């Protein structure tokens, strides 16, 4: 599972203001790339560009050494993106939510898989409640259960620790480290101190400029 996502000369402008310019990035399997910066410095925008959602930028993205627009299908099949909104339907139960995600990935998965993914996310006993009745942290955990349910090499996580309690944070750190040790790649933003024992690089955004922190 070797993966390589490269960004060359990335630049993005919002409301006559450069969020970043001439940003060169590389995401490889076996490491975490952490995007840092104050509020409004363009972290979410960068993550959306790197996950192929935003087209409004300058520069080029390469997936496995091919331009992203030619390798889009392959890229999307390797990507798992968790955004600001957890992507959970409030009227459906966690099990039903996960079943849709499984089917969207083209897998006619078994309920036992979904149950074990929810159990690993610490939601045992909440499988059949409408997600709208769960707390914000529990809803986030339902979204995080997808990391276990749908194995994808590249994870792009926008503030994955939001609303999660201390044990949940520790669990997620363990899961991130395990994913990276298996050769997966992670891009994430967080304001939390991240304690993982795997290679981590950092990108700092802010003041109209971004650079990779050595």
């Amino acid at each position: 599972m070797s993966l390589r996502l490269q960004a060359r000369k990335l630049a993005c402008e919002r409301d006559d203001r450069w969020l970043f310019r001439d940003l060169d990035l590389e995401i490889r399997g076996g490491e975490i790339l952490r995007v840092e910066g104050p509020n409004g410095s363009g972290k979410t925008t960068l993550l959306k560009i790197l996950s192929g959602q935003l087209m409004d930028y300058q520069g080029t993205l390469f997936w496995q050494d091919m331009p992203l627009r030619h390798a889009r299908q392959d890229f999307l099949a390797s990507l798992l993106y968790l955004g600001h909104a957890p992507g959970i339907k409030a009227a459906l139960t966690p099990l039903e939510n996960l079943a849709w995600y499984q089917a969207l990935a083209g897998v006619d998965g078994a309920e036992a898989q979904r149950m074990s993914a929810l159990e690993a996310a610490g939601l045992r006993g909440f499988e059949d409640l409408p997600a709208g009745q769960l707390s914000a942290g529990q809803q986030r955990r339902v979204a995080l259960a997808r990391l276990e349910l749908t194995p994808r090499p590249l994870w792009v996580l926008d503030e994955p620790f939001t609303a999660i309690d201390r044990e949940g944070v520790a669990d997620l750190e363990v899961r991130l480290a395990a994913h990276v040790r298996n050769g997966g790649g992670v891009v994430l933003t967080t304001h939390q101190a991240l304690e993982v024992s795997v290679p981590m690089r950092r990108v700092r955004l802010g003041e109209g400029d971004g650079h990779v922190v050595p």
Partner: protein
Amino acid sequence: MSCPEARSDVVGRGRKRERDTGIGIALYATMRRDLLLLLRRPSTALNPLAFFALVITLFPIGISPDPALLSAIAPGLLWVAALLAALLSLDGLFRNDVEDGTLEQLLLSSRPLPMLALAKVAVHWLSTGLPLALMAPVLGVMLSLPLGSYGVLALSLALGSATLSLIGAIGAALTAGLPRGGVLLSLLVLPLYVPVLIFGAGAVQAAIAGTGVAAHLALLGALLAVALVFAPWAIAASLRISLNG
């Protein structure tokens, strides 16, 4: 890295097979999910039907109970009321998905977005267009619609409302990111609804007059066929614009 072409070819073929089997599962699951959501929140589907029934009930009271007058205006009245009811239900088609982030995930799926959008539109038609078409003959009795035109009324509405759902979904997709897109949606979509209204109401009038119904129904079918071919791509493009704009 010695022979990248060979590697990517193998990967490509594997992915293609996965795509072929996966698309059916993804479409079925999306339709099932949206139907389940409607069952949990039935008011979304019942509101347009209640609106339709109320409008048709009020007309004889407001105008005149004279059967001759009512039966003359019934085809147009039933069609206009059904069209507005369908328009009412469009606003929430994609908005809820934008708000809870599931649309973002739908766009990131490796399945073709036009097909997934079509699945959502199909559910919309099943929950509004089809019930409206089935309800219309019952309301037609209240407007003393002449016998012999009930079947044509239901059929023309079933065909026409599918086109309305497809065209309306383009507008709903374009306005999905706006906080109050309701008025804009109506302005965008109503001009495109006019041909459907003309041929739909025309079919019922032709059935009453005893002239050929087939031509009108064929034109409604043709409109539906064109919408089926082009609308899914337009909806997919609109969704991309409104989410990334």
